[in-house]
């Protein structure tokens, strides 16, 4: 490649192939960090068009057209476009996502959020649970919002860990423990299992999460845990 008249080669991608799918997956995590809630979660259902451009010093940029919907609220699908920049560098850094989200379907969930908040901000509230869903895919109806909340919190970590060689999903909530409400925020200690489709590894993270209808979801602390065999094997 010559130094002068450097052409930024733009490469069209097959939207069904892994490059576009991974970028779409990062966008999904990004959207959930911004707009996710115990009553709202987004899924990028399809990438329609994708292309990529190497940005000299900064990294690799992806341009996507995609569809997304809120699957908890069962919203209609929204068609958007976005830029995802994976930064160059030797240490992991999250992709930078740029898009305008004004058209994203945001169904009215304030009544549900308020009711949930009132219920669990009671002084003696001490929710706890493990294995959500359980091995058979069951989730108690009452635990569903906590499962959604975990997915939103996990999205912060998954976004942070995303690069061109990852495809993250939250596989299961291993543990949830409610902590004392502080500053009007509900607080929870979570242990979540993330699945990286590319390496096939299951990665365990401890998250300290706060939430309120006004405050939204915040991840206050994160800790990477060693993978364990959860029940003691007899070998």
């Amino acid at each position, binding site marked *: 490649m010559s130094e002068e008249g450097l052409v930024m080669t733009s490469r069209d991608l097959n939207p069904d192939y892994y490059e576009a799918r991974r970028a779409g997956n990062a966008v999904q995590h990004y959207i959930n960090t911004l707009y996710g809630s115990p009553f709202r979660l987004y899924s990028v259902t399809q990438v329609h068009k994708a292309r990529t451009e190497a940005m000299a010093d900064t990294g690799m940029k992806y341009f996507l057209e995609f569809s997304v919907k809120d699957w908890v609220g*069962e919203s209609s699908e929204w068609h958007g476009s976005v830029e995802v920049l994976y930064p160059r560098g030797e240490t992991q850094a999250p992709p930078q996502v740029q898009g305008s989200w004004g058209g994203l379907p945001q169904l009215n969930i304030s009544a549900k959020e308020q009711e949930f908040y009132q219920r669990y901000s009671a002084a003696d509230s001490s929710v706890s649970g493990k294995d959500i*869903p359980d*091995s058979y895919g069951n989730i108690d109806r009452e635990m569903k919002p906590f499962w959604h909340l975990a997915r939103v919190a996990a999205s912060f970590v998954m976004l942070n860990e995303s690069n061109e060689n990852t495809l993250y999903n939250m596989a299961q909530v291993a543990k949830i423990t409610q902590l004392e409400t502080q500053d009007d925020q509900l607080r929870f200690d979570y242990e979540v299992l993330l699945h990286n489709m590319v390496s096939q590894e*299951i990665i365990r993270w401890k998250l300290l999460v706060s939430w309120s209808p006004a405050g939204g979801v915040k991840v206050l602390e994160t800790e990477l845990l060693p993978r364990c065999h*959860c*029940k003691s*094997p007899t070998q």
Partner: protein
Amino acid sequence: MTRRVLKFTFFLNRHQVLRINAESEEHIQLLKELEDDEGWELDFWTHPASTDLPVDVHVPFASLHAVKDFLQAHKIPFHVMINNLQVMFHMQPLHSQIYSWMDTLVAAHPNLVSKVQIGTTYENRPMYVLKVGIKTQMNCGNKRPAIWIDAGIHSREWVSTASAVWMADKVNYGVDPSVTSLLGQMDVYLSIVTNPDGYAFTHTSDRMWRKTRSVNPGSVCRGVDPNRNWDAGFGGPGASKNPCSDSYHGPLAHSEIEVKNVVDLVQSHGNFKAFISIHAYSQLLMYPYGYSCTSVPHQAELDSVGRSAVQALSSLYGTTYKVGSICKIIYQASGGSIDWSYDVGIKYSFAFELRDTGRYGFLLPANQIIPTASETWLGLKHIMEYVRDHPY
């Protein structure tokens, strides 16, 4: 011919699955209300969303009359889709239950199915495969062209094994003339639990276990990824050298006895025409290669068969699948089973990744198992019919 009722722990009598065909928005609304009413303990396998797709509901015996009265009163068309729910998975079967069920199946259809032991596992469990084909005096002992289907090679992918149980049941009890003609010409070898040690471990200790349970000398970590252990680009990119990794390829190709048993069967048989491996999750139908992103010589044909198989699959519930080579659709992965099968000359080599796309992932709820198995069956059937009709 009466259907023999198979008795095992995950069997429910007198329940029914109703298929409801909503014809208007009003019907959809009524069905949504029905879904929200917890009193009748209805289990909606598909959600009422549009009049384009049927709504399937599992109804317990106690609520049957009330539900049918409700539907009739509102003039919502329906019919009984599954009577006396034969196979209902509230509990994922243990491999021991699967083995007992296999024996019952064989006893019920001695001229159609036999149980073949292809070896043992690392922990000395038997590896059984169901061989299905219409036995006649003429073909007894001959190696007719055959189709290999394996499920559960990665132990945490429970829906793969569960679907295979349902499909084995279907193959044997079904009255589909196309399947009958297929089984008159070819044998189908169905490996339901291809990694029994791993499967047992997911029940006793770690639901997320993927690999075999072999001991890795010099390491505290056990197991080898059985889908990185085949002799196809073995040890190349997309597999790990680290025994603690979930994609560890193992010390050498076919080091895992579970893999070696399949290799030995296929090679000694010598007349397999298709090799299909069933995994979960992501909703993909893939063909070789994984170890390289270059196209295989039969790429166009495999892609075309794949696409029409997916069309058949989607026709049932609208479930969308993507089609492509392993390397292009998910990742470069060396040592995979369908790369090996393709490279030894089995042209029609495919891998399925079943439901879902991540919401439940490996933990797919029981009420999605039969819908998943039913739609997958349509896709699989399409491939098998194509193989039957394109001898080589």
